[in-house]
């Protein structure tokens, strides 16, 4: 199976790639997108900054060299949905893309992958679509977690749910800390999803949008209330 990690930076791509490259039968590619059409100076400054924050220079340089030598590192200079970028993605002949960039995918990009693009959504589908879903779940007394599903051009409306994992919010004292933890689950859950997809008894659950709602960015007022709920839960349960 050929898998491409679609990331906003090289180090971000390697963070996910590292978790899945040891899977037997999986060839991993890293596609670094130019999110937000950044100018080269800004783009590479951010790249260096994120390298300093994550893997460190030596590890990143050796990994970049290895991936580049094996033609498994693709750096896109144009926006993802431009024809040149789509041609580049098609030429990789990948089965699956893994979403790790802050972009919205249109149909031509999705169909550049044989099976589609997986997204690790930090909410429980089909109930919680859209934004700020972790905090909405806490506010409404529902369990938090991550759902891995094949995306379509809509907002969390892709029909095939590959897996869903409940991750308790208890123990996290703020919305930001909770969300950071849920976002960091992506690489591990992508690995699990790929294992499930490669197994003989793989089955999908349908993402029935009628069973859920689309949520939007939460106000500061309610975010403060959620922070308070998380803090009191921490005190109550230790």
């Amino acid at each position, binding site marked *: 199976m050929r898998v491409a990690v679609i990331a906003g930076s090289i180090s971000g791509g390697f963070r996910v790639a590292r978790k899945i490259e040891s899977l037997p039968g999986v060839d991993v590619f890293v596609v670094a997108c130019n999110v937000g059409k950044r100018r080269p100076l800004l783009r590479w400054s951010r790249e260096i900054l994120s390298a300093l924050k994550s893997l460190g220079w030596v590890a990143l340089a050796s990994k970049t060299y290895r991936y580049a030598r094996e033609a498994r590192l693709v750096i896109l200079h144009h926006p993802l949905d431009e024809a040149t970028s789509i041609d580049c993605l098609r030429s990789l002949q990948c089965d699956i893309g893994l979403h790790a960039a802050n972009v919205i995918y249109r149909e031509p990009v999705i169909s550049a992958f044989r099976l589609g693009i997986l997204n690790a959504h930090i909410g429980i589908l089909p109930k919680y679509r859209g934004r700020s879903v972790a905090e909405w779940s806490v*506010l409404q007394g529902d*369990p938090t977690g991550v759902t891995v599903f094949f995306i379509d051009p809509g907002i969390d409306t892709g029909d095939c749910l590959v897996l869903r994992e409940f991750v308790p919010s208890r123990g996290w004292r703020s919305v930001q800390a909770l969300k950071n933890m849920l976002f960091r689950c992506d690489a591990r859950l992508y690995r699990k999803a790929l294992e499930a997809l490669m197994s003989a008894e793989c089955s999908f659950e349908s993402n029935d949008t009628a069973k859920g709602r689309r949520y*939007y*960015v*939460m*106000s500061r007022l*309610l975010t403060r209330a959620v922070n308070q709920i998380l803090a*009191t839960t921490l005190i*109550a349960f230790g």
Partner: protein
Amino acid sequence: MDLETVLSRPVQLDRCEGILRGALLTRRAELRKSWRQIVSTECLGALGALAKEIESFLSGQDTFRDWRFAGTFRWMNCGASFTDNLRAIALAHNLEHRPSDAGRDRLCLAKFNKLSRIERMELLYDRYRCPLNIGLSSESDVAEELLRQLMVPDRAKLEAGTEFDAEMVLLKLNLVGLRAMITRDLRYLDALNYFYELPRRSLMRMRSHPRLLSFWLCIYAQLLCTPEW
């Protein structure tokens, strides 16, 4: 989900509700003091005889009317104009309405979004002449679309400080607020929270529509002191 989680859920919900209620009442107290920063003296002057009533409603004690029963009808007809009906609801007055057995045809959202700005305004003013109709289950698609428009493109314009259609945004805020009153869907209330929290300079342009602006704040004030969410 483990057994411990399932058993502790009602306790968690009670705690969530208590914290939410506290937060909303704190915002209501804040609104009581700060609404004059949004509705200027000129704006109040433009309201004429209505100004006193708006002033005492926003500065006074918590008042709200429970409109949840309105969600059970198929359609409602009102005699007065949209603005008069909206004023009655915003100020928690009684609203003369006659439930109708015949519902309205569903609004096709694709067609709605293709209409010109004036046509869309006219359609909304006409369809929701009895504004309570926005809370009916048959209107959920329209309400969801209005919420989406507010929270995605309109919000982006206001946050970026670019031009926006103040009358249309205010009309949507009023309708979305009414939907929250009838359905008690927190997402609709939170859209009002979000717009209230935008920098005051973003809301200045709304002063050109003093009635819609003050009705929005009155509806918001009612929602904040509504007990059951």
